[in-house]
């Protein structure tokens, strides 16, 4: 008697639950999806593209005993062997590349931490449509588009270390926080994020390149900062033409002098303001626009020291109009630019009086408003 009615109750409630939960309406707003049934387990591991031999050479120094160089690997070209078995070298369509194996268990750990800490903005599927990411500009990254802005690496895709440092440092002036999580957790999250890249692109694509951090070369201007700033100003407005997107911090007159343009040359309107630029990053089916910062006004996302600025300028901002400057101009000039920008930040940012004197001076004298 007792058993039967309990079973009956259970069946009745089960049926009720099934009947009603099968009928879920699909919401049009991707931000407002009701996350009632969230998968927390990843069942399959993933092979992810790893950085090149240089990266392994560095890791080998950091973790002695783990990586050994085998001259016979990669069909005789030589390569690194991981005694832990996480990294391996294999050939696909004639290309030899390093791959990293992220196990299902590790991705599950990463997935769970991702859901806990990241999904409110980046979305439960990593598509960038989290509830808290609504109306947010700049938008939270979608991990299905492989566009990472501030990674400071040499190629399109960042290495684990580069992503780690972004997450740990956060992006100033945005809701992306400096996360106080352990490296183990963060690296698991990173593997999960990488595994979200679509088949045949990003980390799953044999042809993509995973870059290592831009090396911070020796600053040639340490004792001659004044000259660096002058030189930086010339590069900024001259060879590198930064003023096309960022504000020009000179009058039209001065710009003509720096660029050695003939008298009467005109430049873009509102020269002392930044110009809105297209980006390759898509949200809700359209490419977003990105505002290049005014260094005397906006907060810098990726650090304000000269080394940070050097790396940022050198690597460019991926997916935006900011190109990779490493190789395009010399390291010495890159450092000069970094010093110039740093000087702008230190002298004028958050200092209303100094800034209005400086920018006002540029604006009254020229035709650039």
């Amino acid at each position: 008697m007792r058993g039967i009615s309990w079973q009956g109750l259970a069946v009745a409630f089960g049926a009720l639950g099934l009947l009603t939960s099968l009928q879920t309406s699909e919401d049009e707003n991707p931000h407002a999806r009701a996350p009632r049934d969230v998968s927390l387990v990843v069942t399959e591991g993933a092979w992810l593209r790893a950085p090149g031999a240089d990266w392994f050479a560095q890791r080998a120094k950091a973790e002695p005993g783990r990586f050994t160089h085998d001259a016979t690997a990669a069909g005789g070209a030589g390569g690194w062997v991981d005694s832990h078995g996480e990294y391996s070298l294999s050939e696909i369509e004639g290309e030899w590349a390093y791959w990293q194996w992220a196990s299902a268990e590790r991705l599950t750990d990463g997935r769970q931490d991702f859901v806990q800490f990241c999904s409110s903005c980046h979305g439960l599927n990593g598509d960038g449509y989290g509830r808290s990411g609504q109306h947010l500009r700049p938008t939270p990254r979608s991990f299905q588009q492989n566009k990472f802005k501030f990674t400071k690496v040499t190629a399109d895709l960042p290495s684990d270390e580069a992503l780690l440092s972004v997450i740990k440092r956060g992006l100033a002036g945005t809701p992306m926080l400096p996360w106080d999580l352990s490296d183990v957790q963060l690296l698991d999250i990173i593997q999960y994020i990488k595994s979200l890249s679509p088949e045949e692109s990003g980390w799953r694509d044999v042809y993509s390149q995973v870059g290592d951090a831009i090396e911070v070369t020796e600053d040639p201007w340490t004792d001659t900062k004044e000259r660096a700033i002058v030189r930086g100003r010339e590069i900024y407005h001259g060879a590198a033409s930064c003023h096309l997107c960022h504000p020009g911090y000179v009058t039209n007159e001065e710009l003509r002098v720096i660029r050695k343009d003939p008298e009467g040359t005109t430049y873009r309107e509102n020269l002392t303001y930044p110009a809105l630029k297209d980006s390759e990053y898509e949200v809700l089916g359209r490419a977003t626009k990105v505002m290049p910062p005014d260094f005397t006004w906006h907060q810098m996302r990726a650090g304000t020291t000269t080394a940070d600025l050097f790396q940022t300028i050198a690597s460019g901002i991926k997916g935006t109009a900011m190109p990779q400057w490493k190789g395009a101009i010399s390291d010495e000039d890159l450092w000069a630019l970094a010093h110039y920008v740093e000087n702008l930040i230190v002298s004028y940012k958050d200092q209303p009086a100094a800034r209005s004197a400086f920018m006002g001076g540029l604006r009254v004298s020229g035709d650039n408003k």
Partner: protein
Amino acid sequence: MSSDHIHPEPTTFLRKHVFSIDHKVIAKQFLWFGLIWLGIGGIMAMMLRWQLANPGVPVPLIGGLLFPRTGGVIDPATYNTLFTMHGTIMIFLGLTPAMIGALGNWCIPLMIGARDMIFPTLNMLSFWAMFLGGAVGFYSLFVPLGATEVGWTGYPTLSTTVGAVGQGETLWAIAVFLIGASSIMGGINYITTVIRLRCPGMTWMRMPLTVWGLFLTSILNVLFIPVIGSAMIILVLDRVFGTSFYVPASIMSGGTGGDPILYQHLFWIFGHPEVYILILPAWGVVCDLLSFFARKPAFGYRTSVGAMVVVTVLSALVYGHHMFTTGLSAMLGESFMLLTMIISVPAEILFFNWLHTLWKGSLRLTTPMLFAMGVIFVFGLGGLTGIYCATIGTDIFLHDTYFIVGHFHLTMAASALFGTFGAIYFWFPKMFGRMMSERLGKLHFWLSFFPLVLVFCIMFISGYAGMPRRYYDHTSAEYLRPLQHLNVATTVSAFLLGVAQFIFVFNFIKSRWWGKTAPQNPWDVGTVDWTIATPVPHYNFKTIPVVRCGPHEFSNPVLGPDTDWIYQTEELPG
């Protein structure tokens, strides 16, 4: 059903110690259950304090075992889990069973001269519902994403799927629901027992105040636990079935949605009475213990009862003071402020009566007495700081800072805990037939008392300085960095407090099995429970006693110079 009907003494182990319907066994079950959970909750508190004093440093000793993935460091998610579960455990699984479950089951039948609770089976179910609730809560620690991380108040929308994915929060709601069901069952039982099973002569005004406290608590339990039960049902509907009771529509998109503030109202309609649910039994115990050990009648028995009744009624009408910054209308805010101020009057009457009971007494400073006096001190501190929180002008700044943490810990946690300790030390001889060590008991009191006051008084300072609660790391915000030394001081005191509890654990376990055999009435107290033999026989009273005087006839001149007390079953001479 009725306790007039006698079941034979059970013989199997299962019937005797596990699924027993004997109120004495159930009281012991509740006591052990509550003490174990108090220990678990206490360890959680220690871990929280460790993290606050040493942000990001691995927890010593147990850290590596508990959090192997982070190398012993408490991460923000774990931290949130810890403080949420600390609150839930201490309130629902620690104090409720130890205070109301154990004390109620032990004292009510024995002190009113009944053979058992009126519904013994319901009594057993009450314990096992709570056990199940505890089991569900414990299980939730091990599901993916871990137990709930949204604070014991569980405010939506953080507690809906908007802010908490995973099963932890759902299981938490179910656990709270089960524990609530247990409290309702217990409450119905207590009320009916007190109304129906008082022995002849035990009039309402001859009941010990402990029973009064428990009786009023039970009324609050029966009336207000269902409110949180319903709030939890709605929460589960929202989380599991996707309804939108608590999930609002966005301001920008318009549309019709639920209301997260609704939950806050429901929660505090329950939540404020819950404070009194925990404190009323402690008040009752304190009233009695002060009289017992000051060898004086409880001063103003009737006004004490009246004050407790008024508090019971008012407790339902003041809940809005938890929501002063939520955006209550001006009218509501001012009304709740006034009502909250009014509730201080009955509390003040109790203080007056307590202090008057002590005045010109003949104080035996035993351990139970020390704890009862400790409650006066601690509750005085907590109650008086309530004025800051009741006044909107100060509460706007102090809301959700450590000031509040200090305040409610002193009122509902420390006072209820001290009351529980006092009660345990007092009834232990009757319960287990052995005496607890007085020397260790006094050591336990003094080593708990000073750190405890220190912990929460430093919290008042941090709160006044504007340190918000539920922060993982107070050194990250520039404003809070200069206050870190206060956190360190709190942690040191908290650790001292934690260590002192081992004295109790040692004393309890040692006395339980190896203590001195207790005489029938070690305290010279006249209530009905001390008239029977130790250990208490099956069905307590061979014949139902007849009560002939009040519980507090101490030092009555008519007793003559040789004795200063009399059993309630005896007639006052002359």
